[in-house]
Structures are given as structure tokens and as C-alpha cells.
């Protein structure tokens, strides 16, 4: 990480207008991950720094959402695991979280499902999102479902990315747990690179909103 990407605690508070109390409270509630508190020495001794883009974005989101949701609900939105264990496919369609088309595709691979676990809901949600944006084909959608089903369990609650590349028309889909930078030869075309954490946040907001 470069020096420029870090922001000191003092600058952060000035920039965002929050107080020390709020910052510490959000830290206690796990709204801000421990890993973002970076200790560096400075002229006053040890100081705390944060990754600038991530923390500013997170604080903006907390400020926007904290009026509607309690801090505990917010923490749940930001955490990669979920308390929603499962929902029936009908409720999901009725609540407009996923379309019946995406569920049908999912069921083509795994047979009929009455209820879906959170991981499966996430899979269907991703599937629908990518199909709608036209980034993947039906066949690749099936790959997605299989990859998620087989591997996401082991990665659950860890930040990871979903990546699709194509070379000479051959698609290759993978889940990367920590891939800051990957390089391929020039024939390889990046189709998309999706942070699962962001999708999980979106999905959870949808789940929570429709519950209320």
C-alpha cells in the first residue's frame, strides 16, 4: 500500500465531520474492520492511519444509512456473513429479490429447491445480476452456479472476488480469495471482476428492506 493511500485519523475526522466517539463506537460495532486500523509512527509517536478510499466510502455509507437502520443492523450489512439462513424460492421471487428466470437456471443445475440458503441466494442474485447486465451467457451462468456451490462454502465470511476471463472464446470463471493483481497474456479478455463483499451488502439491504 502506498503512502498516499493512507489518511490519518485526524484528517479523516476533519474531512468527514464525525467525532472520536462515533469512530470508536463504529469500531466497537465492527462497522469498520480492525484490519483498516494501520499503525504508523509519526512525529507525535504512534498514530493510526486508514486506507483512504475504503474508509471514506464506508463512512459515507454509514452516515447515509444510520438514520434508517440501527448500528447492529448496519454491522450485519457490512459483515460478510449473514443471519438470514434461508428463504423459500417463492418468497424470493415475490419480494422481487431475484427473478424466476435466474432461479430456473439455478434449478436446472441442482434440481428443484424449496428453500435456498444464504449462499445459494447470493449465487442466484449474482447470476441474475450478471445475466441482466449481459456480461455472461447462460452456459457461463451454469459455471457460476457450480463454482459458487462448490467453493464459496470454504470462503464464506472472507472477502473474495469473482472473476471471469475469456481466451479465444473459452470462458474461465474463478473465485479469488486475495488477488490484488493478476496478469494474463494479451489474448485473454477480462469480462468482469466483481467484489463479493459489495454484492453481499446490496443483497442484504434488499433482504432487510423487504422484511420491514
Amino acid at each position: 500500500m502506498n503512502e498516499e493511500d493512507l489518511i490519518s485519523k485526524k484528517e479523516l475526522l476533519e474531512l468527514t465531520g464525525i467525532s472520536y466517539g462515533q469512530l470508536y463506537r463504529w469500531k466497537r460495532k465492527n462497522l469498520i474492520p480492525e484490519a483498516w486500523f494501520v499503525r504508523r509512527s509519526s512525529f507525535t509517536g504512534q498514530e493510526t492511519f486508514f486506507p483512504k478510499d475504503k474508509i471514506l466510502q464506508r463512512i459515507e455509507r454509514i452516515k447515509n444509512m444510520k438514520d434508517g437502520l440501527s448500528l447492529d443492523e448496519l454491522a450485519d450489512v457490512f459483515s460478510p456473513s449473514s443471519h438470514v439462513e434461508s428463504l423459500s424460492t417463492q418468497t424470493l421471487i415475490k419480494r422481487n429479490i431475484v427473478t424466476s428466470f435466474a432461479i430456473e437456471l439455478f434449478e436446472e443445475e441442482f434440481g428443484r429447491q424449496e428453500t435456498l440458503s444464504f449462499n445459494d441466494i447470493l449465487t442466484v442474485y449474482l447470476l441474475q445480476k450478471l445475466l441482466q447486465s449481459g456480461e455472461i451467457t447462460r452456459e457461463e451462468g451454469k459455471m457460476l452456479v457450480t463454482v459458487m456451490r462448490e467453493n464459496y462454502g470454504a470462503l464464506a465470511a472472507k472477502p473474495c472476488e469473482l472473476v471471469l476471463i475469456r481466451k479465444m472464446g473459452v470462458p474461465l470463471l474463478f473465485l479469488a480469495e486475495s488477488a490484488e493483481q493478476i496478469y494474463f497474456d494479451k489474448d485473454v479478455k477480462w469480462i468482469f471482476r466483481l467484489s463479493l463483499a459489495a454484492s453481499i451488502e446490496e443483497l442484504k439491504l434488499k433482504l432487510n428492506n423487504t422484511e420491514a
Partner: protein
Amino acid sequence: MDTRSELQISGIGRSQGGSYSHVRTDGMAKINGNTECISLDSNGTLTIEGALTSETVSVNGTATVEGGLKTNRMVLDGMVSLKEHVVCQELLTVNGRLSVGRGLDGERVEIFGSLKTRDDVQCELLSVHGGFSIDGLLNAGLIDVKMNMPCKAQEIGGESITVRRLKKFSVLEQFVPALSAKLQAHTIEGDDIYLEHTEAEIVRGNDVIIGKGCRIGRVEYKNQLTQDEDSHIGAAYQI
């Protein structure tokens, strides 16, 4: 239906860990293995060679838990040593001495006596009557400390921080300065801060009151700074 059995040890006894409904020990007890129960009640000496998960924990006397501890309510009277991370979701009351080998996560923490941890302490409310030594960050919404023993933390952060010294002045501390009741911290950050007899390098807050006996290297405040005559501030900046 809960089919777990009770565990009761009176006198000198030893038992396996496992899943129990209620655990009650009187005398010298040793449990070897991870233990899970609804309530744990101990009088005398208790050693658990493993982790403990129990809704309520009550200890009279001494106790040692080698593994992690997770509970809702815990009352400790006496000397307790917990070697790993401690989570207490509702209320932790200590009358005596508690030492934690790692960090402590709590909601309400009330200490009458002393608290010692090797890592961060996080809770909503911390009230200390006595002293503490926290080898890390103390992060609590409301911190209320009445010192009559030396207090130490690397960093303190929270919304409201109040540190006072109890009136009683012992003869001993006039001769041995290391034993005097004062707070030592590197950084103290909060919204409302009131400090007495505190040595810190940096204090940052909205409304800061530096009471008697403080030595602060640098104060950064937003709204207001009040300083007692009997205190020393290296430099003060309004931000």
C-alpha cells in the same frame, strides 16, 4: 428437551469437560476439557483446562480458565485468571482481581479492584473502582474510572471519558511513586474528557477538562479546554 446432566463437585474432584446443564463446584475442582453449560457456579478453587461457554458464570474464590470464555453474565469475586479471549455479552462484575491473557469484549463492565488484560478491551460501559492495566486499546462508550491504584493503557478511546482519583491518599505512595494512583496512557481520544492525575502524550476531544495533577504533552480540542492550575500541558491547539 434438554438431556444434559448436571455436574457437581464437592471437596477435591476432577472431571471431564463436555456439555452440562449446570456446573457447581465447592472446594478444589479441576475440569479438563472444553466445557459448555447453562450456568457455572464455583466456590473455592476451580481450574478449567479448556474453553468455557456458559450463559452465566459466578466465581467465589480463585479460578483459572485456560481456554477462551464466552458468557452473557459473569460475577467474579476473588482472583480470576482467564488465559484467552473473553466475551461477556451483558454484564461483567469483578470484585477483586481479573487478569485476561488476551482481549476482552463486553457490554457493561464493572470492576471493583483491578483488571489486567494483554490486549484490547471493548465495551459500551466501563466503570472501574480501583485500577487497571490494559496492554492495548481501551475502547468504550462511557468510561468512568475512580483510581486508587496505578492505571495504565496504551490508548483510550470513547465518547465520554472520566478519570478521577479517590480522595484517600496513602502514605506508601509518598515514598514509592510507582505505586501512586495515576493514569498513564499514550493517547486519549473522546468527545467529553475529564482527567485527573493523568500522564498522557496526546489528548484529543471536543470538550476537554484537564484537572489537577495532570501532565499532558499535547492537547487538541474542538470546542473547549479547561485547565486546572495544578496541571501541566505542553501544547494546546484548537482544531
